[in-house]
């Protein structure tokens, strides 16, 4: 019999529920550590933790169950050891593993009274959402970004699910902006990230870094004609880099001199913009710009480098990366200890209510940064958010309309870009409805022959219906295929719509001859950039907030226009 740490103020029924409950905490990062502390000091006797991440120095300023000597070790394992020192009589099980592992199927989830998510990426959140729906186990979802945060209950048949509301996709940029006319620092970061992938990561033709001759702006006056000598030869960047053995000088001269010179030849682009200046390796290393290193702090991370230092670091890094490959992160707002602690406190207060089936008393709660315009720090919704009847995950017959170019997209691209990266399936089986054609099989090797075929080659055309089934997630999805060809510069490669009403509106738009312009939500160039993020609780700006729909949710970075909204909200309050 364990020690009784159940808080006295709770009623007897709840005290019993707490002693009996079996809880799974998914993620042992910033919020996870705080939740685990709260659970172990509030009478919970049976706790399991899963996290595939290891401890990094930069975690230690908030993931307080870890110390310097733990760096490099499993978060789940060390978190377990730490909370056992608060109370050694509780049962704690740690899994140093990915929640996507097929071992954690519906039956695994069914053994718990309640699942608490403390994750840092949307892909894993979507997956746990589906597992909890399939197992019919309540899920408390939480997240923080800087001073803000949120807690939300997800319970099948009672609330909306994590995927009921279309979320703003990770911000993506038109290829020509990145390759030809970057204007914000973030464009340069995206370019660098693409360059990294071209050279060392997963090659992706949509992440080309060299000048884009398809830029619609070039065609405006028709002055630019593609010259054979100027354009980069259409061997892939990777192939070329390998041929020159990743010679840093040659790489540098291509990206910062030759490509820039070529860009300058696209005169249309520089009529209103400041043209870029090509720089050669020889000049840059001699510091021709007269810049010098500026130290902001006595730290490797906080200095402004001179051009020659940048070039040198480029060369050194290329040499190291040639040997070691890895991945990098995207848009991030860092998480802090105070917001994590606050959110984790609310998570456990809601856990108390969920254990008593008091679901109606668990509307979403938002932590907001204090502003001069608002007195509310913790805002609660008035009611539970109702499920979206057209949700392509939790409705009774999940259905989605996908718009793709069936003559261009391969089965492999369809599986990876759409089914896995966008619709978050893990191992889908797909058949073409009515024809019985197996398009994709989760069994290795069974449908490999289809991989490089275009969709249309398999008979998938406008109006086709696909049945996709993910066994692990117990998730069946009907996919209506719509042929679509990207026309405008900013058009995405593909898009999807779950709500039939929305679809109707778009079709009407077409009939009336107006341009069909998809909103940002359906735009998607690359997804799950964060999946392999090695800093567990850095949070992604756009990712962490399930419902953009609630008025209680405040924009992370209120701009001037948004302040009016906040004032209005206060009046209603």
């Amino acid at each position, binding site marked *: 019999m364990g*020690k009784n*740490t159940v*808080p*006295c*103020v709770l009623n007897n029924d709840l005290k019993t529920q707490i002693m009996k409950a079996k809880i799974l905490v998914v993620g042992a990062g910033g919020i996870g550590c*705080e939740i685990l*502390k*709260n659970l172990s*000091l*509030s009478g919970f006797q049976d706790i399991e933790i899963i996290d595939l991440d290891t401890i990094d120095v*930069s975690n*230690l*300023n*908030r993931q*307080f169950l870890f110390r310097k000597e733990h760096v490099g070790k499993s978060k789940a394992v060390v978190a377990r050891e730490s909370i056992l*020192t*608060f*109370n050694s009589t509780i049962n704690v099980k740690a899994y140093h593993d990915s929640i996507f592992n097929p071992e954690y199927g519906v039956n695994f989830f069914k053994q718990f009274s309640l699942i608490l998510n403390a994750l840092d990426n949307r892909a894993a959140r979507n997956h746990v959402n589906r597992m909890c729906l399939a197992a019919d186990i309540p899920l408390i979802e939480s997240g923080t970004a*800087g*001073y803000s945060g949120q807690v939300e209950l997800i319970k099948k048949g009672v609330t909306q699910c994590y995927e009921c509301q279309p979320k703003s996709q990770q911000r993506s*940029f*038109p290829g020509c*902006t990145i390759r030809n006319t970057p*204007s*914000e620092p973030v464009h340069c970061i995206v370019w660098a990230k693409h360059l990294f992938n071209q050279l060392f990561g997963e090659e992706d033709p949509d992440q080309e870094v060299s000048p884009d001759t398809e830029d619609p702006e070039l065609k405006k006056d028709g002055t630019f004609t593609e010259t054979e000598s100027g354009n980069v030869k259409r061997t892939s960047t990777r192939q070329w880099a390998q041929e020159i053995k990743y010679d840093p000088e040659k790489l540098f001269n291509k990206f910062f001199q030759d490509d820039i010179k070529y860009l300058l030849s696209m005169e249309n682009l520089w009529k209103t913009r400041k043209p870029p200046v090509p720089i050669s390796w020889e000049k840059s290393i001699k510091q021709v710009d007269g810049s010098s290193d500026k*130290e*902001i*702090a*006595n*730290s*490797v*991370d*906080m200095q402004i480098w001179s051009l020659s230092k940048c070039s040198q670091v480029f060369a050194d890094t290329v040499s190291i990366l040639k040997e070691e490959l890895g991945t990098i992160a995207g848009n991030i707002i*860092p*998480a*802090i*200890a*105070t*917001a994590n*602690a*606050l959110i*984790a*406190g*609310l998570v*456990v*207060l*809601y856990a108390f209510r969920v254990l008593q089936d008091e679901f109606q008393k668990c509307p979403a*709660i938002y932590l907001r*940064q*204090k*502003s*001069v315009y608002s*007195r*509310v*720090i*913790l805002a*609660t919704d008035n009611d539970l958010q109702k499920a979206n009847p057209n949700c392509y995950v939790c409705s009774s017959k999940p259905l989605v309309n996908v718009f793709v170019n069936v003559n261009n997209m391969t089965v492999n691209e369809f599986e990876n870009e759409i089914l896995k990266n966008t619709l978050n399936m893990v191992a889908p089986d797909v058949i073409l409805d009515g024809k019985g054609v197996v398009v994709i099989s989760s069994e290795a090797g069974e449908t490999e022959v289809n991989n490089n075929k275009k969709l249309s080659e398999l008979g998938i055309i406008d109006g086709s219906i696909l049945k996709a089934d993910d066994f692990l997630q117990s998730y069946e999805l009907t996919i209506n295929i719509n042929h679509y060809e990207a026309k405008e510069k900013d058009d995405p490669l593909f898009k999807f719509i779950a709500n039939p009403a929305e679809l109707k509106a778009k079709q009407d738009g077409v009939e009336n001859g107006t341009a069909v312009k998809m909103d940002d939500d359906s735009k998607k160039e690359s997804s799950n950039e964060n999946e392999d993020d090695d800093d567990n609780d850095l949070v992604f700006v756009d990712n962490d907030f399930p419902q953009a729909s609630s008025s209680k949710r405040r924009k992370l970075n209120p*701009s*001037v*226009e948004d302040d009016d909204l906040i004032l209005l909200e206060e009046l209603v309050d």
Partner: protein
Amino acid sequence: MGEKQLSSAEAELYDRQIRLWGIESQEKLRAANVLLIGIRGLGSEIAKNILLSGINSLTILDDGLITEDDLLHNFLLTESTAVGKKIAEEVLARAQALNPLVKIITDTESVTAKSPEFFHNFTIVVATKIKVDSIIKIDNICRERNVKFIYGDVFGLFGFSVADFQEHDYFEDRIQLTAGRKRGHDGEKKTVKVKGNISYPSLNKVLILPNTKQDTVFVKKLARPSNLFACLLTLLEFKKQHHRDPDYEKKNEDIEKLKIIAADIIELYNFTNLNMDSLYELLFGELIPVCAIVGGVMAQEVIKAVSHKEVTINNIFLFDPITYSGKELTVGA
């Protein structure tokens, strides 16, 4: 302050938070000397959060002894710690492990034995679990030298904080889009530093209880009577009369005592239409998740007060034990 640069070890450890609040704030934090009075449930949460943030020094003042309850609920103690030892000394090892870069001083004297000069040594004083007389006294001492002060407490599911940051200057970064273009790919964003000032009333004008010599002219009628503010005052008066927190072992008896006090508070403030009946049951014990919430808010206020970055709460924070919402209430200004 801030003339010495952060070491590379500090920059590495604090990397993520510096990305949020900037290096200037971090340098102000690292120059800050914080006094924390009371290291029970709420105190341990505040200690954790501000140690992690990277202040210069933390002085933990608590003359209390360890109880059974502390061993069950305080993560700064280990299971093997003996009941009856001085709590301030026993939390040291774990507190230090949270951040080896912060100087931690433990002090087992009584708060009432401390001279005014003692308090003047600090950048900010954070108090939990002290009586209202001490709150007012310490606040007055802090005011003599512009030492910032915040007090907070947790009673069951209810919690609050009360701040006196005196004349407090702050700035915040606001992101503005340049005029003309909005949200376009080429629209330029500009970060603007906006300065502000909040004038906090002294706490003898904020926490006014019945039957005191204090001048009740300071009792300002609130625009809307607040159940939770009345509850806060009721609990302070209870502590003053009974020299303890409400006790779960004497629950029914203590609820009757609270009701009598609440009636006096309502009369003094002329709060009409207040009904606190649903609250009394919820005021017993020190719930760890509530300590985490109030401790998170208070530590964030300490960080904001010390770094002068971002808008602080003026002057009371109230955590609702029923809805779990949390709001600012301005009293006495």
